[in-house]
């Protein structure tokens, strides 16, 4: 669409736009409020003057002299007040005109400077507001507009209408952004993404429209909200129903119904349509979780209560009948059938009731247990066509129990509740933000809203996205409000994610930058003699944190290959401590315990069992960190296939059919496969085997399939420790032992013979550094303990551990 075409479409809005140019909507409404108070005040004075004139209020006798002027003043302010309202009626008459362009876009087009469209857009009231939503102070766009920049003439614009065929403010902003290089550079300097810029305009435009629609009380949809008088007289009482069911307003979900109405707008609309049709329509609402399906029905009920619903549904009373718990609490088949039939018949007789059946799957099963046919009872009510029914169930229960029961679905229309994703989730967060902030005095930027939507998807995978994003938003707002600030930025949202999950989201902060830079040094401090491995790990973590890693896989994944006791596990622990802040951020699975036929069940849970699998519960609990899979080659094939899926998709499905995310974990698998190549080389004096040779050997001996091997971001080989490295490890272990003894006020002297003794233990091929640890923890600490128990040393003493000719250690005071 060219600019002249846009102007032609905008023509119907010209009178309103011209009025807006004379005086803005806000200024006019301010003036109207002042005039209203003035009318009231002057009228009061006129009244007082009249009373004083009749001698009733002598204190106001002075007003009597001014009564003519007061009456004149009243006529003036009253006339102005009426005139102001007439002008508003004039404004709204044009504002709500239907065209292929909306008012805000039309007004900007009509009032724009033809030589500088960007200037007009950014200077407009909504343009200025959009920049506030972008977190940019007012003076910065003003300075940009004043600068010596190339102007973007309106004639150069090519405007693409939105998906609904209507050109709105966001489409004008998109066109300006596309045409005006100067604007793009300005935004780049301010680190504003194009999608943030466009969404800011879309958001403020929607806010504006919504405010105007609410202000126009005379519009049919606003008048329809007023509840009817005496509507309930025509309908019956439902005593029997109330014995087994509760009004939906008593359920917590009803209080959050507006949130659900926004999150699941299509499903809410569809359920409303089915129930309002009045031809015996019944809905079966299916959602990933039953709570979401219930929320949809609660939203419909709320709309019906407020008079916002379609005519056939207005004023209907929604009762929730938990069929599952009724079936499990009644004593007999007769009792169950009589209670349900009586309740449903009475509801049908009442004429204004909608019955919401919950836990349908368990009702079917519980009823079946005492020989009752729940499906037949429901079908009787459906066949009578007098009572709208809504059944709700989780997706899994629906597939397992309801779907195979073909009779039950007769007369029901299935409504599938989809959680909002992408743009829908973004819009939901924006509306939530408007609502959440209304009382907090906190103002959300577009970047914060994007951060909520993106971080929800990336870091908070368990549960429904709308719940998670609303929770994240509330947590971020609460943190900002308690800090006494008024603007919610993306960083605040990332901080809330960090507080909830412990995961660093968003841009790399100063602290984290330092941690990343120091990663090699911190790892090397703990892992001796594995510089190449440490560098590879650190580089991969940095790459992932810089946002270069795939977002639908784990943060990073490594396979550590090498003999026992060369630092594979220690590297993983050091990484958890250095990058995630502590070894408690590590989930460790020893795969030798998962080699049997029940391995998969132990990891992800067994169907029907309430206990979660070890892996699924640990990942859910930690939400992010390091997943260490020790000796992965010992895992059963099913368990290895599970890890293949985790490495590929970053998540898996547990026994209950729920998704479990591993996207925020660094996955480290360790294995001894191929280690014998090192020892063969050592014994024959051949050079150390190459990485490729070790990987090939690990695949060849069947420890790894090529698919699994290829899924890792890096396969890192840990070579056996050299003599020097062993001494380094020995020194580290002895330092640790000395530190431990220092806590008890003993000072351990690390001598060269002691160092040699520990390093020699590391020559053990089967155990490597683990043998050194045993030497320290077993022999040295035992010798010290003996000396302490024998009273040979006292707190404050220095201890010397000597190696006797037979290899025995003795500790004594130095």
């Amino acid at each position, binding site marked *: 669409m060219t600019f002249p075409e846009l102007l032609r479409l905008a023509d119907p809005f010209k*009178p309103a736009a*011209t*009025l807006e*140019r*004379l005086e803005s909507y806000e200024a006019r409404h301010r003036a109207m409020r002042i005039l209203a108070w003035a009318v009231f005040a002057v009228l009061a004075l006129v009244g007082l003057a009249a009373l004083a004139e009749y001698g009733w209020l002598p204190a106001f006798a002075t007003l009597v002299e001014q009564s*003519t*002027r007061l*009456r*004149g*003043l*009243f*006529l*003036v302010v*009253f*006339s*102005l007040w*009426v*005139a102001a309202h*007439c*002008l508003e*009626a*004039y404004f709204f*008459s044009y504002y709500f005109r239907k065209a292929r362009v909306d008012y805000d876009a039309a007004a900007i087009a009509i009032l724009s400077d033809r030589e500088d469209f960007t200037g007009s857009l950014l200077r407009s009231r909504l343009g200025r507001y959009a920049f506030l939503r972008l977190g940019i102070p007012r003076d910065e766009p003003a300075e940009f507009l004043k600068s010596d920049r190339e102007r973007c003439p309106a004639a150069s614009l090519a405007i693409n209408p939105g998906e609904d065929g209507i050109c709105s403010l966001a489409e004008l902003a998109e066109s300006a952004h596309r045409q005006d290089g100067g604007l793009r550079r300005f935004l780049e300097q301010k680190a504003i993404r194009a999608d943030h810029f466009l969404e800011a305009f879309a958001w403020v435009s929607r806010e504006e429209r919504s405010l105007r629609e609410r202000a126009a009380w*005379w519009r*049919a949809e606003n*008048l*329809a909200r*007023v509840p*009817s*008088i*005496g*509507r*309930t*007289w*025509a*309908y*019956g*009482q439902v005593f029997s129903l109330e014995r087994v069911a509760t009004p939906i307003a008593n359920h917590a979900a009803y209080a959050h119904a507006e949130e659900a109405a926004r999150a699941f707008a299509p499903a809410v609309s569809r359920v409303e349509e089915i129930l309002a049709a009045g031809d015996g329509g019944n809905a079966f609402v299916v959602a990933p979780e039953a709570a979401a399906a219930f929320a949809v029905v609660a939203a419909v009920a709320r709309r019906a209560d407020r008079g916002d619903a379609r005519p056939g549904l207005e004023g209907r009373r929604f009762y929730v009948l938990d069929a599952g718990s009724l079936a499990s609490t009644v004593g007999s088949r007769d009792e169950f059938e009589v209670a349900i039939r009586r309740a449903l018949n009475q509801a049908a*007789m*009442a*004429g204004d009731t909608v019955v919401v059946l919950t836990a349908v799957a368990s009702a079917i099963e519980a009823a079946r247990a005492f020989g009752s046919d729940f499906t037949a009872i429901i079908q009787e009510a459906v066949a009578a066509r007098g009572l709208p029914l809504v059944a709700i169930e989780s997706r899994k229960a629906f597939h397992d129990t309801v779907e195979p029961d073909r009779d039950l679905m007769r007369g029901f229309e299935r409504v599938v509740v989809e959680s909002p994703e992408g743009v829908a989730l973004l819009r939901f967060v924006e509306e939530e933000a408007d609502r959440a902030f209304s009382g907090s005095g906190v103002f959300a930027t577009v970047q914060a809203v994007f951060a909520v939507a993106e971080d929800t998807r990336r870091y908070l995978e368990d549960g429904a996205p709308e719940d998670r994003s609303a929770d994240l938003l509330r947590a971020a707002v609460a943190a900002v409000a308690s800090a006494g600030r008024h603007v919610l930025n993306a960083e605040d949202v990332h901080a809330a994610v960090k507080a909830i999950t412990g995961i660093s989201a968003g841009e790399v902060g100063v602290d984290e930058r330092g941690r990343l830079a120091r990663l090699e040094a911190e790892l090397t401090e703990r892992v001796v003699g594995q510089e190449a491995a440490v560098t590879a790990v650190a580089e991969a973590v940095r790459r992932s944190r810089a946002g270069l890693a795939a977002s639908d896989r784990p943060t990073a994944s490594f396979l550590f290959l090498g003999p026992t006791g060369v630092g594979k596990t220690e590297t993983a622990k050091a990484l958890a401590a250095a990058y995630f802040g502590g070894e408690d951020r590590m989930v460790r699975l020893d795969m030798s315990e998962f080699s049997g036929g029940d391995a998969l069940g132990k990891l992800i849970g067994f169907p029907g069992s309430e206990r979660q699998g070890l892996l699924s519960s640990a990942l859910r609990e930690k939400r992010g960190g390091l997943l260490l899979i020790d000796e992965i080659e010992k895992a059963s094939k099913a368990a290895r296939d599970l890890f293949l899926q985790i490495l590929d998709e970053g998540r898996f499905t547990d026994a209950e059919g729920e998704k479990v995310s591993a996207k925020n974990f660094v996955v480290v698998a360790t294995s001894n496969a191929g280690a014998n190549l090192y020892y063969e080389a050592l014994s024959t004096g051949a050079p150390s085997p190459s990485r490729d040779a070790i990987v090939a050997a690990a695949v060849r001996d069947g420890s790894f399939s090529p698919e699994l091997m290829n899924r890792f971001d890096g396969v890192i080989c840990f070579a056996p420790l050299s003599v020097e490295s062993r001494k380094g490890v020995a020194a580290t272990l002895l330092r640790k032992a000395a530190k431990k003894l220092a806590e008890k006020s003993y000072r351990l002297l690390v001598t060269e013979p002691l160092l040699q003794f520990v390093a020699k233990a590391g020559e053990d091929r089967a155990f490597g550094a683990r043998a050194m640890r045993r030497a320290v923890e077993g022999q040295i600490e035992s010798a010290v303990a003996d000396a302490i128990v024998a009273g040979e040393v006292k707190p404050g003493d220095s201890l010397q551990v000597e190696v006797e000719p037979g290899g025995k250690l003795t500790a004594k005071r130095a």
Partner: protein
Amino acid sequence: MHLGDAIALPFRYLAWHYSRGFVEALALWGRSFRFVTELTAVRLHLRTFFSPFQRIEDHERGGIEDRLASSAANAMMRVVGIVARTCAIAFALGCYIVAAVGGLITIAAWLLLPAALAATLSLGFIALTR
């Protein structure tokens, strides 16, 4: 300040007031009747005029005495329903009259409003300067 717009505004307004504005005022008047219909649920009360109040009915099946008692109770609930609905319908009629008369006055006032405003404003200024 756009002087041209400011000068043109009263003339544009007057043109709107007696064309589109008048049509919208008529439409609003029509909407007020619909509003009264919805507010008072008058159609529902007419449709269910003879129904028992809140559909309360006694279905006892027994001897002649029980049947008579049931019939009396049912008749009573219908009477209660008729009385309540008559009140509601009377209220609705009152609302329709208010809407009709009020709307007529509003439409008449609408036609006179520009002149009336000019007159009250002038009178006001005259009184102020006296």
